[in-house]
């Protein structure tokens, strides 16, 4: 027993033992393990795991498919992939900012829905020109998300209500209130979803013809890129970022240093909610143009995996969002091409989350082994 452990220890130590490499080796490690686990599951179903994984890439526009319909090509698929990536990036930024302040924002999905719904009914159904409508959608999305986030932060500060509990509860509250309004006032009787928003307010330009291809171009991706830069700047270069990190690392030390912990938490939750709001509008008033009642977007939960996998760093989440979106976006094609159910893709995402959540433990364990040697 002891000897066997020794060998495994040696292998693991030689790959992720090095302190400097740990920040990215541990995520890479958890992705690899997840992919292996996924491959085993797919193999059990009697399918070829390599083919299935290749299908994921094809479905995301990263590898060419065997054949395309008219006006479609790899670039079309990639544009569609970017459409799915945009809300994921915002949602992951939302999770990161909260995490840095020591808060776990489980309510990204609810905040997304609140923002997406508000922007839909206020602007999406209006007749404003595109030049006015699009910026307004963005502003309303941010403000609405920030308000929900601020509420969570305020509850935490004033009544010491755990943010995990309040965000989960708010998820339900928002979900049911929104579905009540949709079913009562805004439902499209055919699709059973909310009525489609007008093209003027929508953050994705649909059916744009470039060369011989038609594609949907997400404008939000530029905003998301800006969001990543802003978040990185906020956390690294501003006094507010310093305060957020201090509160997140040690509440008592932050308090002792004269930082107003409550205010910092409310601000961090506002920003977190704001980014969730942007995820919401790029999702409901961009990628999609309507809201399905009584359903929360999985993006908000996947974003937690993305943030953890990306080491809670604004740059890291670019890579992890990319990966997770490939898995979820490509799953539809995987199911039609090799008959592997799309749920398997969700399961792989789940396993990634599981292993990346173990990252801290793996690091701790590896450090212990190193000390023992």
């Amino acid at each position, binding site marked *: 027993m002891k000897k066997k452990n020794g060998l495994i220890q040696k292998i693991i130590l030689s790959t992720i033992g090095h302190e400097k490499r740990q920040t990215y080796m541990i995520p890479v490690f958890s992705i690899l393990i997840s992919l292996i686990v996924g491959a085993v599951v797919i193999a059990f179903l009697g399918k070829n795991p390599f083919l299935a994984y290749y299908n994921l890439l094809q479905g995301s526009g990263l590898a060419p498919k065997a054949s395309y319909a008219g006006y479609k090509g790899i670039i079309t698929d990639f544009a569609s992939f970017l459409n799915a990536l945009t809300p994921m990036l915002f949602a992951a930024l939302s999770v990161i900012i909260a995490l840095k302040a020591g808060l776990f924002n489980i309510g990204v999905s609810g905040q997304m829905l609140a923002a997406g719904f508000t922007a839909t009914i206020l602007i999406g159904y209006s007749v404003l020109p595109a030049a006015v409508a699009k910026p307004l959608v963005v502003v309303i999305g941010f403000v609405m998300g920030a308000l929900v986030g601020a509420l969570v932060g305020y509850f935490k500060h004033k009544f010491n209500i755990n943010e995990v509990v309040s965000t989960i509860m708010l998820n339900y509250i928002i979900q049911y209130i929104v579905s009540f309004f949709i079913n009562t006032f805004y439902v499209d009787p055919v699709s059973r979803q909310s009525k489609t928003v007008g093209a003027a307010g929508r953050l994705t330009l649909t059916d744009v013809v470039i060369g011989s291809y038609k594609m949907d171009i997400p404008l939000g991706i530029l905003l998301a890129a800006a969001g990543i830069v802003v978040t990185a700047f906020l956390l690294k270069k501003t006094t507010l970022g*310093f305060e957020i*990190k201090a509160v997140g690392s*040690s509440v008592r030390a932050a308090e*002792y*240093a004269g930082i107003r912990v409550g205010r910092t938490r409310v601000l961090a939750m506002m920003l977190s909610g704001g980014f969730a709001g942007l995820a919401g509008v790029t999702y409901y008033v961009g990628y999609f143009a309507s809201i399905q009642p009584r359903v929360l977007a999985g993006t908000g939960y996947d974003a937690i995996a993305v943030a953890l996998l990306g080491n809670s760093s604004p740059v890291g989440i670019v890579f992890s969002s990319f990966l997770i979106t490939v898995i979820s976006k490509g799953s539809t094609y995987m199911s039609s091409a090799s008959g592997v159910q799309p749920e398997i893709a969700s399961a792989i995402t789940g396993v990634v989350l599981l292993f990346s959540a173990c990252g801290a433990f793996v690091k701790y364990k590896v450090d212990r082994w190193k000390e023992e040697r």
Partner: protein
Amino acid sequence: MSDYIIEMNHITKRFPGIVANDDVSIKVKKGEIYALLGENGAGKSTLMSMLFGMYEPDEGEIIIRGQKVKILSPSHATELNIGMVHQHFKLVSNYTIAENIIMGMEPVKKHLGFIKSVDIKKANQEILELSRKFGLEVDPTKVIEDVNVSIQQRVEILKMLYREAEILIFDEPTAVLTPQEIEFLLEIIKGLRKDGKTIILITHKLEEIKKVADRCAILCRGKLIAVLDVAATDTKTMANMMVGREVSFTVDKKEPKFGREILKVENLTVKNEDKFDLVKDVSFTIHAGEIFVIAGVSGNGQVELADAVAGLLKHSAGRVILNGADISNYTIRRRNLAGISYIPEDRHNVGLVMDFSLSDNLALKNYFEEPFSGKGIVREGEFAAYGERLIREYDIRSSQGNNTIVRSMSGGNQQKAIIAREIELGSDLMIFVQPTRGLDIGAIENIHRQIVAQRDAGKAVLLISLELDEVMNLADTIGVIYNGEIQKIADAKTLTPGQVGEFMMGVGHK
């Protein structure tokens, strides 16, 4: 031979950087009250933790009832009929008294022959009987969080008795009690001896030892100094031995030159969550160029007093006046800016953000000001330059300079970083709470010199110390606190260590 129920022979226990017990041997007779006396950090608790199976000795042997044993865990110790009441109670606060006592060895009853459940009625009955038998009346159905500290302590004692402990270890049992409660507890301890139990009492309060103990072992800096027959020894001798005869390094200190009044504390009262007074109606003043030391045994309200002055705790009555301005309602940040530097007791959880870099920690109290930042944007270059200067001037050693994560630094260097940061704030009032706790002699000497230098630079220094020799070495004025009340304020030169010690134990004459 086995006159002795416990023999601990040549016990040595080392922790990184410190020898907690150095070749200590004690022998305890069955049915006696054996006291372990020593200052904080003398190694009393470590020695008993080994007897209770929480640590393993590096060297030496433990013999219980004539048999050599290796005590592996607290549950193993319980099997050997050893019980311990820890300084911090280990109780589940939302369970009842009975549930806490029986936890781990519940009486079980079976329904229909196979469904097991805890027979709480039987447990309540048993505990009621047990508590009556030893004069420790409790209501077994009360929930822990609804009863006061002294009852909680009874529960801890009952927990040991329920497990049929023969050897009872009490770790500083009176630290949390009021004088009346202490009297009662000491009676109980005597009663337990009458019932044939063997009792080990860890304490640094001489009066208690004098009242109940048969014999007393004195530890100083990890070494066993003497084992005394309590009846034949007076408290003064014990105090001298406890502090240690070795020459304590004296600090070069010029005559103080008192300047204007910097801090004035008026009738300050601080309550805890249970509305219990931790600091009672305390008043004092500190002048520029004065070291005012608050001496007292741990847990007598001195930390809360410092927290209240620095703004970390809210006071319920009284005023704090700094440089003539009433700062009672100021936030922590405003107090810092008004001129308070604070070296807190808990350097890990309060004084430092452990996962921040050294330079970030050095700028922890002025990151928001020019030149460290402007318009909300931090200037990393300024952080780095400032960090480098402080590292050089205060000789803070770390593996990667500015970028070292503070968690990886040694305790002494962490404390240097805090002191550097607080001195550089240039505040009129410097509060030091146990600044030398847990540090080695070199670091202690260094910090003492810095404290005196601050005084000579015209600062008002409020020092809170548990160590008698630190108090005597540094103080210009001594205020002794006991049970949240100031017992005595006097010029340091007019008091002898013995007198200060007596006031610290609450037995001095005002």
